[in-house]
Structure formats: structure tokens, C-alpha cells
């Protein structure tokens, strides 16, 4: 700004002399005050600044103001009313970057408006806008005008704010144009916006529902797309709404329960997680997993609720739980042990699963099976162990379904039978998984054994019947055939002259024929299923008869003892009873042989109670007469004892005895509804015990037993 000084010729002399006088006064004052005083005052208090100070003041004010202007972080230019740049500040001067808006450097004298009008290309829009704005301010249409614009350098983005204000005072008329670098602010704005966008994107994009709730009013401060959609709303519909209206939509969840969210959530540190039943706008029920936590958002405390629809997941979980429970129940309930054994490709093996019933069934716990490798060997019966081990070895070599039965001893010492089934599965890795099952088949085995025994007995009976039928058939013919042999041989013997050499031969023939007759008779007796002709028989009497008969035939080395109790009666066929005693006695005598020996026949009464299990030899409970025929002969081994009542079974040499005797005895006793059993010890002796039902007729009738 150039200072206008006015110097004119027409200035009158008075003025000129006053000015000169002023200068001289000033100088004089300066001299008088020594140049150390800025201002003086007269007696009326009127101050007067000395020239030096005035100058200095003027200078310093101007300098200060210039300094201020130059220091400001703004490019300032003063335009006149035409738009010409009158003055610029230091910053304007220094900004060397030629821009359309600003114009080249510090070009005072240039018309700023023209520069803006001329702007083309990048930033031209803003330049024209700026020109328009300046004009409107200059024209007094607007007090001020502002526009933001970008002006990027090759290396960085820059933003500016241009402001125009009217300047109208006694000195100047025009406008002040100011460009301020607002890059930092703008960058912050951009960063904030992009951060805001990022947040918005996430908020909108997540599949979980996010709800930001005001703890004081329980209203939704914000809801994301997913959250609103869960309930069938849009975010806008929910924002501002009391959240309890939405959350307590399931009748069972009361409003107070929903309110409880807001009481408990804020104090918590870590998120509180729970399931919550919801109802959507359309009535659909669903289950969400809620995570609640307090959060400070935009400076205020909110409740942040994240919700995931877990309806399906919970349903699946429930199904899995039920399935697990079912399988567990099955495994625990099935009468067997379920297990899995993994045989790895490298050869290592281990149990991966053993069901609960392991201990109950095998006696060993699952832990013992896993930890103790010797259990199998101890548990499995010796006779089955080699088979078992071989089967396992083969299974390792060639995995295929395997089934083994084995006897074993449980930990408690019980004998059991088990059935082991293994189904192997081979995996691509080379590992093999054995799915296995162990069943306790002891009961089954017992039943099998019983069945086999019964079958044997049945076979026995059938054999006997067959023999009987056969015997009955041929006996008749044999008897006819024996007639000539017996009779005519005797006749021939009679006709022979005494001393004839043929006598002995014929006698032998006769003996043979007699033997044959006896044989046929025995066979017939055996085959007959006659009901005995029973009468009331005093057992002691029959025993006495038997003893008498024996006395005649027993060799002297055998003693016979009779300990038959008196007054014991049975309903029996006396002949058959005698036959029984004779048979048993004969056997006893044979057992003793030529040594010293003793046969005892004893009788007493016995009461038979209800038997424990069922057995073909069981008798009806009641009063019985017991008859014992005992000897101290050679006895029998257990195998013989087992077979002693078998038809045709005999330990006697061939030709000596038919082997039918005891089976006939057995049949007779059976027919009398009794039971016969035998105990024997090899080398010690044998005892046959017969039980026969006691006669119902007056037992204490002593007179009847004569």
C-alpha cells in the first residue's frame, strides 16, 4: 500500500511555517527528553507522542500487524472492488504452486477474478465458484463467502478453505480473500467417514443380530440389518423402540424377565451368555443365543447385545444328545459288552471303547482291560485259550468277521461261557478298527447241555423201545425155535445108551438151549411195558425172600446182612420187586468176586421234599420207602456209573451176562413210580438206592405186615 502524501503548491505559507515549527519543536522536545521518552503530557494532561516514538509506534504497529498477517497459516490477499490484487501476505507470496484458483504466486496487480474466470481443467469448477462468490461479496450481495476445494500435489492430498469477506473502511474498499490449508481437518474427516463406513459395513454385513440398547430407557439405540430381520423388521422400525416390546414377545418370557436383562448386564465384565426364546413379527418362534455386555459407545454406556439364531443348532444338539443317550442306554442295557479295539497300521493296538457293563459281565473293569494285557489269558479257560489266540492272530493277518465261543472264569471265580463277535473295519490309513461284542451265553450253554442230555435220554428210551419192539417180534419165533432144541435134545439124551460119547455133547447142547431160553425171556421181560400187578407188599418180607434165595447161592466168602426195617409197605408187584433185589444182589456178588466181602440190604422210610430243579429222575414229593443194596466190592468208575442203567451195557466179559439186568431193574422201579440211583467208588464198593412210594393204606397197621 503506497502512502499518499499530499504536497501542493497552493498550500499556504501558514501551514508551511506551522509544519516547519512543528518539526523544530519536535526536534527540540527530542533533544530535551534525550530521546528516551515516547510521550509527554502538559499540565492539562494532554499527551503528545514524540516523533520518534510516533514513528516507532507507527512502525511497530505496522510491523506487528504485518508480522501477524505473515504468520497466519493462511494465504491472504486484498482485492480492490475490481478484483485486482492490492496486497498479499507472506504465505500468499511464498506459495509457489500455481493453481487455477490462487493464481501464480504473489502477483499483486493481477486481477484475481480474471485468473479464476480463466481457470480450466482440474479445479476449474471451484475457481468459477470462487469468482462468483467474490463477486457477490464485492457486490454486497453477501457478507461473506466460503468454499472448500481440493488441490492435490503429486505426493499428497491437500484441501483448502477459501473465505472472502468484504472490506469497507475509509482507507480501502474491496474484499479480503483467505485460503486456509484444511488438509488435516479434511483428512480427519475422511478418516472418520471411512471408519464410520467400515463400521457400518460390518454392522450391516454380519449375520448375527447386533442390538445397541440404552440401559436407562431400554430402547434400541441401534440395530443392524441382521438383527432387525430376525424379528421381521427393518432397523429403522426398531431404532428408538422400547426393546422389551420385541424381546418379551414370547408369552412365557414376561416383560419383567426381559427387563432383567438391563439390570444384570451393565455390572458384568465378561459377556453374559444365555438362550432366549423369541417371536418374530409373523409369529414364528425361534431360539437365539444372546451375548450381553456393557459397552461405551459414542461416549455413553450402552448394552451391546449380540444374538445368533440357534434354533436349528439347538435342535440338532438335542437330537445328538438324545442319540447319545439312546446309544448309551443301549450299550448299558444290552446283555453284553460292546467294545472297539484299534489295531494301528504300525502294529500298536488299544481299546478305544468299552461299554459300561464290562465289569458286571466279565468281572473286570474297563480300566483293568485297558491297562492289564494279561487279562485275556487269565480270563479264558485253558482249553479254549489256544483256539482264542489263534483266532486273534488270524484276525490280525486277515481282518474278517470272526465269532468264537469260549469258557472262562470271571474275576469272582464264576464259570461262564462267552460268545465273542468281532467285525473288523479297515481304513485307508491301514488302521483296522474291531467292532466287538461279548455275550454271556452261559445260560444258553446250560440249556444246550440239558437239551443234549434230554436228547440222549430220549435216544436211550427210543433205543429201548426199538429193542422192545424188535424183541417182542422175534421172541415169539425164537421161542418156537427153541422148542425142538430143548425138548428133542433131552429126548435124545434119554435114548442114548449109558456111557455114550454123545451124552456130554448133547448135554452141552441142552445147556446152551437153556441159556438161550433165559436170554429170550430176559429180552421179553425187558421189552414188556406191563403195568405191574401191585398189591400191598411188606418190604421186609420180600427182602427176607431174597435173602433166603441168596443164602442158597452165595459163596461163603460173601456175607449178607439184612437190615430191613419192619412195617414198611409199598404197593408193588412182589415178583418184580424180588427180581430187582435178586438182580442187585447178583451184581453185588459179582463185584465182590472171590475176595472177602459183604452185601448189605437195608430199608428205612424217607420223606422227599420238593426238588430244586427239574430232572427226569425226580420223584413226586411225599413219603417213601428207601431200599439200599450195598457192597464193598470193586466199585465202578464214574464213566461206568453214568452208563450203568443203559440196556446192553455191561462190564462183565462177553457171554457172561446180557447187560439187561439193571436196565430191567430201572424199568421196574420207574413203573412203580420210584427212583433208583447209584453211588460207587472204584476199589471201595457200590450202593444202589431205591425209593418207592410208601403204601397209602393204613401205615400203622402192624397186623397187616405179616
Amino acid at each position, binding site marked *: 500500500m503506497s502512502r499518499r502524501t499530499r504536497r501542493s503548491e497552493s498550500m499556504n505559507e501558514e501551514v508551511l511555517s506551522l509544519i516547519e515549527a512543528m518539526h523544530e519543536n519536535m526536534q527540540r522536545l527530542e533533544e530535551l527528553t534525550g530521546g528516551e521518552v515516547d510521550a509527554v503530557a502538559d499540565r492539562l494532561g494532554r499527551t503528545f507522542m514524540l516523533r520518534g516514538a510516533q514513528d516507532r509506534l507507527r512502525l511497530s504497529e505496522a510491523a506487528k500487524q504485518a508480522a501477524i498477517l505473515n504468520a497466519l497459516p493462511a494465504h491472504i490477499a486484498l482485492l480492490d472492488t475490481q478484483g485486482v490484487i492490492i496486497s498479499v501476505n507472506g504465505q500468499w507470496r511464498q506459495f509457489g504452486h500455481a493453481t487455477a484458483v490462487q493464481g501464480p504466486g504473489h502477483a499483486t496487480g493481477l486481477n484475481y477474478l480474471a485468473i479464476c474466470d480463466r481457470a480450466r481443467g482440474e479445479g476449474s469448477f471451484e475457481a468459477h465458484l470462487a469468482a462468483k462468490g467474490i463477486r457477490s461479496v464485492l457486490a454486497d450481495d453477501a457478507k461473506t463467502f466460503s468454499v472448500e476445494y481440493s488441490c492435490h500435489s503429486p505426493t499428497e492430498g491437500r484441501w483448502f478453505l477459501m473465505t472472502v469477506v468484504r472490506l469497507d473502511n475509509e482507507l480501502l474498499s474491496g474484499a479480503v480473500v483467505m485460503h486456509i490449508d484444511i488438509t488435516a481437518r479434511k483428512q480427519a474427516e475422511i478418516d472418520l467417514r471411512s471408519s464410520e463406513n467400515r463400521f457400518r459395513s460390518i454392522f450391516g454385513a454380519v449375520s448375527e443380530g447386533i442390538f445397541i440398547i440404552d440401559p436407562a430407557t431400554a430402547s434400541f439405540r441401534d440395530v443392524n440389518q441382521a438383527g432387525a430381520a430376525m424379528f421381521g423388521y427393518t432397523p429403522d422400525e426398531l431404532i428408538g423402540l422400547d426393546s422389551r416390546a420385541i424381546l418379551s414377545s414370547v408369552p412365557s418370557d414376561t416383560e419383567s424377565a426381559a427387563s432383567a436383562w438391563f439390570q444384570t448386564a451393565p455390572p458384568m465384565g465378561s459377556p453374559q451368555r444365555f438362550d432366549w426364546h423369541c417371536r418374530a413379527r409373523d409369529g414364528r418362534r425361534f431360539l437365539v443365543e444372546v451375548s450381553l455386555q456393557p459397552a461405551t459407545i459414542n461416549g455413553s454406556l450402552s448394552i451391546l447385545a449380540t444374538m445368533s439364531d440357534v434354533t436349528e443348532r439347538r435342535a440338532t444338539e438335542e437330537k445328538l444328545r438324545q442319540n447319545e443317550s439312546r446309544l448309551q442306554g443301549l450299550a448299558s442295557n444290552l446283555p453284553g459288552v460292546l467294545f472297539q479295539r484299534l489295531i494301528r497300521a504300525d502294529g500298536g493296538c488299544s481299546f478305544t471303547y468299552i461299554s459300561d457293563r464290562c465289569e458286571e459281565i466279565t468281572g473286570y473293569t474297563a480300566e483293568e482291560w485297558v491297562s492289564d494285557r494279561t487279562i485275556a489269558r487269565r480270563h479264558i479257560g485253558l482249553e479254549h485259550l489256544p483256539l482264542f489266540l489263534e483266532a486273534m492272530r488270524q484276525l490280525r493277518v486277515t481282518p474278517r468277521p470272526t465269532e468264537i465261543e469260549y469258557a472262562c472264569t470271571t474275576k469272582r471265580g464264576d464259570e461262564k461261557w462267552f460268545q465273542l463277535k468281532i467285525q473288523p473295519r479297515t481304513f485307508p490309513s491301514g488302521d483296522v478298527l474291531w467292532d466287538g461284542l461279548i455275550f454271556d451265553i452261559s445260560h444258553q450253554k446250560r440249556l444246550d447241555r440239558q437239551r443234549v442230555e434230554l436228547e440222549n435220554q430220549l435216544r436211550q428210551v427210543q433205543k429201548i423201545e426199538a429193542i422192545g419192539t424188535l424183541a417182542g417180534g422175534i*421172541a415169539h419165533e425164537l*421161542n418156537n425155535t*427153541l*422148542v425142538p432144541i430143548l425138548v428133542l435134545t433131552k*429126548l435124545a439124551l434119554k435114548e442114548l445108551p449109558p456111557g455114550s460119547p454123545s451124552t456130554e455133547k448133547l448135554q452141552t447142547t441142552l445147556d446152551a438151549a437153556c441159556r438161550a*431160553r433165559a436170554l429170550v425171556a430176559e429180552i*421179553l*421181560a425187558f421189552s414188556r411195558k406191563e403195568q405191574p400187578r401191585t398189591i400191598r407188599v411188606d418190604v421186609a418180607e420180600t427182602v427176607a425172600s431174597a435173602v433166603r434165595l441168596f443164602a442158597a447161592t452165595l459163596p461163603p466168602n460173601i456175607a449178607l446182612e439184612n437190615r430191613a426195617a419192619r412195617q414198611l409197605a409199598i404197593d408193588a408187584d412182589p415178583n418184580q420187586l424180588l427180581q430187582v433185589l435178586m438182580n442187585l444182589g447178583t451184581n453185588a456178588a459179582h463185584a465182590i468176586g472171590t475176595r472177602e466181602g459183604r452185601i448189605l440190604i437195608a430199608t428205612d422210610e424217607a420223606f422227599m421234599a420238593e426238588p430244586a430243579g427239574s430232572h427226569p429222575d425226580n420223584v413226586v414229593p411225599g413219603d417213601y420207602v428207601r431200599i439200599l443194596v450195598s457192597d464193598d466190592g470193586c466199585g465202578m468208575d464214574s464213566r461206568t456209573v453214568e452208563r450203568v442203567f443203559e440196556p446192553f451195557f455191561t462190564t462183565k466179559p462177553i457171554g457172561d451176562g446180557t447187560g439187561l439186568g439193571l436196565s430191567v431193574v430201572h424199568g421196574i422201579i420207574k413203573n412203580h413210580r420210584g427212583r433208583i440211583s447209584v453211588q460207587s467208588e472204584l476199589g471201595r464198593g457200590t450202593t444202589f438206592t431205591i425209593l418207592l412210594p410208601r403204601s397209602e393204606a393204613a401205615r400203622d397197621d402192624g397186623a397187616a405186615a405179616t
Partner: protein
Amino acid sequence: MARILVIDDNQLVRDTLKAVLLSVGHKIAFAADGEEGLRAYHEFCPAVVMTDILMPKKEGIETIKDLRKISASVPIIAMSGGGRVGNLEYLEMALRFGANRTISKPFELEEVIEIVAGLLEEAVLPSTALEPGSQSC
């Protein structure tokens, strides 16, 4: 010395009885079944009849019944091949239907001789008089 009629389907039995009865001087006639036996009875007029029970065509019990229709008094011995132990029912029935004695096969030589002799002795007593030719035998 008497006439004995033997009715039995078994050749061996017939041959045996022939030898036995001849040895004590009796005269024998044979039949192989009941029908033959009845015919033989009419022709032979025996003093004693021995008959088996189980026979084809006409069995023993029937034969005995029919014989008794002809003669109430002729001694009849019923034989059975059931052995010493059995066919008791048959023999009992035979007695009920009129047989005088029973004998079980295989019998002893002496048994046969004695049983026949015994019956013949009884026959000579007045109550059981047997006059050859007096019956329509």
C-alpha cells in the same frame, strides 16, 4: 396110549411134539391152523387137543371156542410162544374160553409128558368120561 391132536403153525414145534408124544406111545394128528384143526378134530377124535394161540387163518382162542361148541369136555391145552414171562393175557383168555391147561414155549420135555398124562388121568374119571365115538368128533 391116546390120540393127541396138535394144532400149531410152526413145523419145528409139530415135529418136536410128534417125537415126544410118540416116545410115550401116543398117536398124533397135526394141523397147521385153526380151520385145519377143527377138520382134524372131526376126523381124528382125539383124547387131548394141544393148540397154539397165535396162528394164521383161525387163531387159537377162536379155535378153542369152536371146539367147545363141539365138545364141552375134551381136554384142551393152550400153548403160547410168548415166553415164560408172558402173553399171560392170551393164556388167561384161553382158560376163560375153555382151555384146561396152559403151557409156555419153550417148554420142557417132562412138562409136556406130565401135562398130557395128567389130563388123560382126569378123563378116565366118571365126571370126565370120554367115550370114543360117543361125540360127534
